[in-house]
């Protein structure tokens, strides 16, 4: 409580002060430096990538000795605010890695330089990843790495519960969860968030699997469609039957310990969990299986990951393009997979030996089935509305009514 209302107000206003002062002196200059000239390219990268980009940049320097790549690692938790503040103060770097759902917001801010589609071609990348950067015919980012969701489930416990075969459909998954529930060791059969920050990531696959979409061709939300109601109904089943915890998880809950302790034998998550299971609960590393998310009316999934963007205010756009070209090249991407375990966004990289020998088939299948989240300026707010809807749903709310309410809220956010 030591941070007072006023000091937060101060923060808000300091951002404004900076923007007032600095936008006045920035911008307007077209002093572009050519790619061959000696220069420093500043790059912000987040999380694990932030720690490793500098390493791979050394290879880049062999071809482009004149370009010094200066990487600033930024934590994911603060990255969003830092980027917006930097945009306000006109202090953005030359390029950055942007979370796939942030692109819409930065397009709205006018901070991004469109991508040259002669140099980067849609056909090389996963369509869902590419489309997440596309607005009104312009492309603002090049997909760098992708992630998606697969279903993790304990095979030994499934056997114990007497459930056979891989879960391939919604019905299979529900049957498996009901089987798990009968085991004494089980606390919750399925880890499905009942709302809370980021719960939307778990629900969107259901929407896509039901054949639904987020928005129609004109960008109007379609969250009250019959498909959306169907997805909500399916999601709610796990709470109604006591298969998933009906209250939202406390911030920072990590399913992995419960997964290892037989308490929560099934969850849906991204590729990074494979490594985490090996590190944190090695005793069950051979006792589980990953499968593509079970399908409803069809296969469906979300695509996450990050894109590489060049900021409009950069004076080193040519160098930034070279570096982006290098990072999204199939060979570099395959090597990058070995270094950082990030799944390549460039589809050609999946034919490289490094990925051929890795067990990533399920992820490939999921990525092919994934649908894009279009770059909506107020996506964060819509996502928050979905989180709130799921919370009400888990408490026994009526799917049709909630879908109508969600639609109304979403419509007011998309103008």
């Amino acid at each position, binding site marked *: 409580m030591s941070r007072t209302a006023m000091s937060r107000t*101060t923060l808000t206003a300091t951002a404004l002060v900076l923007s007032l002062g600095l*936008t006045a002196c920035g911008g307007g200059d077209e002093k572009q430096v050519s790619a061959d000239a000696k220069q420093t390219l500043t790059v912000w990268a987040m999380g694990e990538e932030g720690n490793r980009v500098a390493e791979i940049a050394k290879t880049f320097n062999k071809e482009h000795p004149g370009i010094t790549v200066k990487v600033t690692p930024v934590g994911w938790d603060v990255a969003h605010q830092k980027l917006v503040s930097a945009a306000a103060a006109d202090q953005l770097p030359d390029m950055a890695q942007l979370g796939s759902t942030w692109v819409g917001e930065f397009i709205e801010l006018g901070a991004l330089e469109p991508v040259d589609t002669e140099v980067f071609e849609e056909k090389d990348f996963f369509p869902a990843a590419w489309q997440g950067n596309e607005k009104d015919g312009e492309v603002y980012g090049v997909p760098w790495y992708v992630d998606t969701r697969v279903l993790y489930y304990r095979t030994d416990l499934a056997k114990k519960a007497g459930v056979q075969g891989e879960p391939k459909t919604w019905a299979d998954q529900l049957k498996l969860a009901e089987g798990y529930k009968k085991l004494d060791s089980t606390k919750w059969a399925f880890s499905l968030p009942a*709302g809370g920050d980021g719960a939307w990531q778990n629900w969107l696959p259901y929407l896509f699997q039901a054949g639904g979409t987020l928005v129609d061709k004109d960008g109007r939300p379609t969250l009250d469609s019959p498909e959306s109601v169907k997805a909500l109904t399916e999601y709610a089943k796990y709470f109604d039957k006591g298969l998933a915890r009906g209250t939202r998880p406390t911030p920072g809950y990590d399913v992995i310990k419960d997964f290892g302790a037989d308490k929560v034998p099934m969850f849906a998550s991204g590729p990074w969990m494979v490594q985490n299971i090996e590190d944190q609960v090695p005793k069950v590393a051979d006792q589980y299986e990953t499968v593509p998310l079970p399908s409803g009316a069809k296969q469906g999934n979300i695509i996450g990951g990050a894109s590489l963007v060049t900021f409009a205010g950069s004076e080193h756009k040519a160098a930034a393009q070279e570096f982006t070209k290098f990072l999204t090249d199939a060979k570099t991407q395959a090597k990058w997979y070995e270094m950082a375990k990030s799944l390549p966004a460039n589809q050609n990289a999946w034919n490289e030996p490094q990925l051929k020998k890795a067990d990533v088939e399920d992820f490939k299948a999921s990525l092919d089935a994934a649908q894009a989240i279009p770059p909506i300026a107020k996506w964060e707010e819509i996502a928050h509305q979905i989180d709130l809807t799921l919370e009400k749903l888990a408490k026994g709310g009526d799917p049709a009514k909630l879908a109508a309410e969600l639609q109304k809220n979403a419509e007011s956010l998309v103008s």
Partner: protein
Amino acid sequence: MRAPTTSTPTTTPTTSASASSSSSASAERAASGGKAPAPRTPASDRSADGTPKLRRDRLSRHNLAGWLYSTPFLAFFLTFMAFPIAATLLMSFTDFGLRNVTNPMDAEFIGLENYTKLFQDELFLKALFNTAYFVVLGVPLTIGSGLFAAVLLNSGIERFRTFFRVGFYAPVVTAIVAVAVVWKFVLDPSEGLIAGLARELGFTAPDFLGSEALAMPSLIVMAVWRNMGTAMVLFLAGLQAIPTEVREAARVDGAGAFQEFRKITVPLLTPTMLYVAVMTTIGFLNVFEEPFVMTDGGPSDSTLTVSLYMYREGFDFFHMGYASSMAYTLFVIILAVTLLQLRLLKDRTK
């Protein structure tokens, strides 16, 4: 009683007026047209450099050193406090949103729209209610437990006094993140301390942070634990300032321990009580960290406080105009509550 001769001219009349109830003081004042008479004291005859001039220009060379000394503070204050505070006020009358982050001048003035919207916003009203809930329960509990601990430490416990003082004060200086880790463990419904104890005794502990009814009380308990140390230290200082003769006199008159506490300790602690009450209430009205780290406002917004909602609107969604209007609403509420407290808890012992 006349004022001592060393008093400066401006303080003399007030001292004399309040110290003596004689009619001469008021008559004197009336004669000088309500203005303070300036008795000729040695100090007022000549000022430091020997000139007979009484009033000096505030910005004269003599004061230059003072202004220079305060420049670092003033520069900081004006840049990082006064200007932003004014800017926030302006912003609260605009529709400042995400796109204005890069073009602040495009924000449009919308008058009081943010404020009217605020009071139709169910979520804000809920946040207001939650904050009030937190304050109404949390502040008396903090003051009560702080006072209780202080009284015990002041007279009851002889041994390990320092140990207990440190123990009660430790939560105040511990980082909130560390506190959150410990409390999450205590409250965890499956592996937590309370859940474990309950299991031993054959009960099932509720899911404290996951239940709409219990989440806020849990946070209140945690906040009381975190803040009672401050209250305790202040009360201890206040208790030590109560002269022993007063207590002895009470005891000689036959007062028991409880009577002594009620008739001597509490009234003489009123100034400390006022300070503790005002500071604790301001802190509790601004409650942010506890729900931020423990529940993120949930479940179902049952722990969403005004500050947390403000943060979410301002920094998650960049509705700066709307968030600013919330900041000012909270500011007005804090100001009103503080003024009310200053009035209610006026020191009546003098």
